């Protein structure tokens, strides 16, 4: 369990480019930015291949790689250049990946899958298919409306005129048209959908 034994076992577990990466990290610790960028660039593919074993999608893999790189950056002072680089790197990477996996498992355990996507609200009515209304029923219902309301709904809703155009065509004021149209819609709802809650 001594450092020597630890170093020996670490050397056995070292990554292929371990010695070069160790030298690059030593330079990075001394403030050599180019060496640091080169090191992070070189270890990224290795981390990506490691991450693919733990996370399912490409996006998740890239997130995991970035998480490991950020962790390395935060604790790069813990690397001792006299010891192999591989065990240090692999320990950080695996612990971060396992942590990620654990978080994912925890999150999935708290999620509830919706079994029926069509049902979105608890109220029964909103989950029923829309009832189709025949145009003849609409025409008949419009015919039953008082004159002012009928004129307003025909001009504004059926002929799709603007309030100004409808006002000029009917001789009613804009305010009166708005009120008549609102009342007409309510009356049509009562005639066409008598069971609907209001």
């Amino acid at each position: 369990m001594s450092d020597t034994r630890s170093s020996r076992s670490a050397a056995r577990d070292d990554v292929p480019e371990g010695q070069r990466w160790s030298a690059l990290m030593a330079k990075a610790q001394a403030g050599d930015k180019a060496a640091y960028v080169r090191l992070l660039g070189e270890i990224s593919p290795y981390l990506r291949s490691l991450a693919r074993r733990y996370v399912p999608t490409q996006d998740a893999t890239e997130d995991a790689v970035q998480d490991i790189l950020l962790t390395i950056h935060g604790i790069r002072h813990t690397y001792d250049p006299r010891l192999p680089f591989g065990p240090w790197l692999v320990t950080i990477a695996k612990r971060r990946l396992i942590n990620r996996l654990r978080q994912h498992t925890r999150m999935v355990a708290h999620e509830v899958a919706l079994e029926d996507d069509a049902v979105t609200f608890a109220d029964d009515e909103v989950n029923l298919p829309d009832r189709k209304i025949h145009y003849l029923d609409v025409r008949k219902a419009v015919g039953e409306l008082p004159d002012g309301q009928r004129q307003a709904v025909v001009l504004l809703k059926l002929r799709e005129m603007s309030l100004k155009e409808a006002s000029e065509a009917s001789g009613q004021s804009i305010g009166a048209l708005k009120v008549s149209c609102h009342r007409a819609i309510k009356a049509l709802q009562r005639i066409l959908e008598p069971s609907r809650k209001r």
Partner: protein
Amino acid sequence: MATTDELIAKLGADAHAIQPLRPPMIRVGLWLLAAFAIVSGLVLSHGLRPDLIDEFSRPAVVIEWLASLSTGLLAAVATFHVSIPGRSVRWALLPVPAVMLWLATLGVGCLNDWLRYGADGLEVGLSVGCFETIVFTSVPLGLTLLLMVRHAGPVCPGPTILLGALSVAAFSAAGLSLFHHLNSSLMVLISHGIGVAFVMLTGWASSGALFRWIGLKPL
């Protein structure tokens, strides 16, 4: 979100020179100095117990006290090693023999009390003062240690805190033995045991929050 190449460029731009950590054994030494100062302050503030010399003339008591000190020392060594990525996790086993010896000496103490005084020698009870002292002494010791191993947050928070808590609780118990007297070994076993276990479990359960608070997020 930035691409990995963009992130590397940002990290590279932020890569100022840093001082690598000192070797773990040197850092253990520094923490022991801090621990010695805190526990000494506590002992001096309470005053040594009057029967200290008589009590420590008994080999069993000395062995028990040395076992608690060894537990604190070896757990500290283990803490500083496991907190560094790439070190063998077997360091975590280092304090096990000392813990076993500590528990064994307390167990032998209970047996002796029973043989000497019969059932009267096995006074059962938890000394609340004893428990509180272990817990409250562990706070400054633990915070000092937490600050020194805060880099373990993102990689090895649980084992680091567990071993660290064992170390601080063992040192607190060793300091406590110098100024606090308990009637029976069983009371010592219960009070010290519950105190140490409480510190360890609280530390373990709150390791994530502690590291987040101290500065490095375990995520």
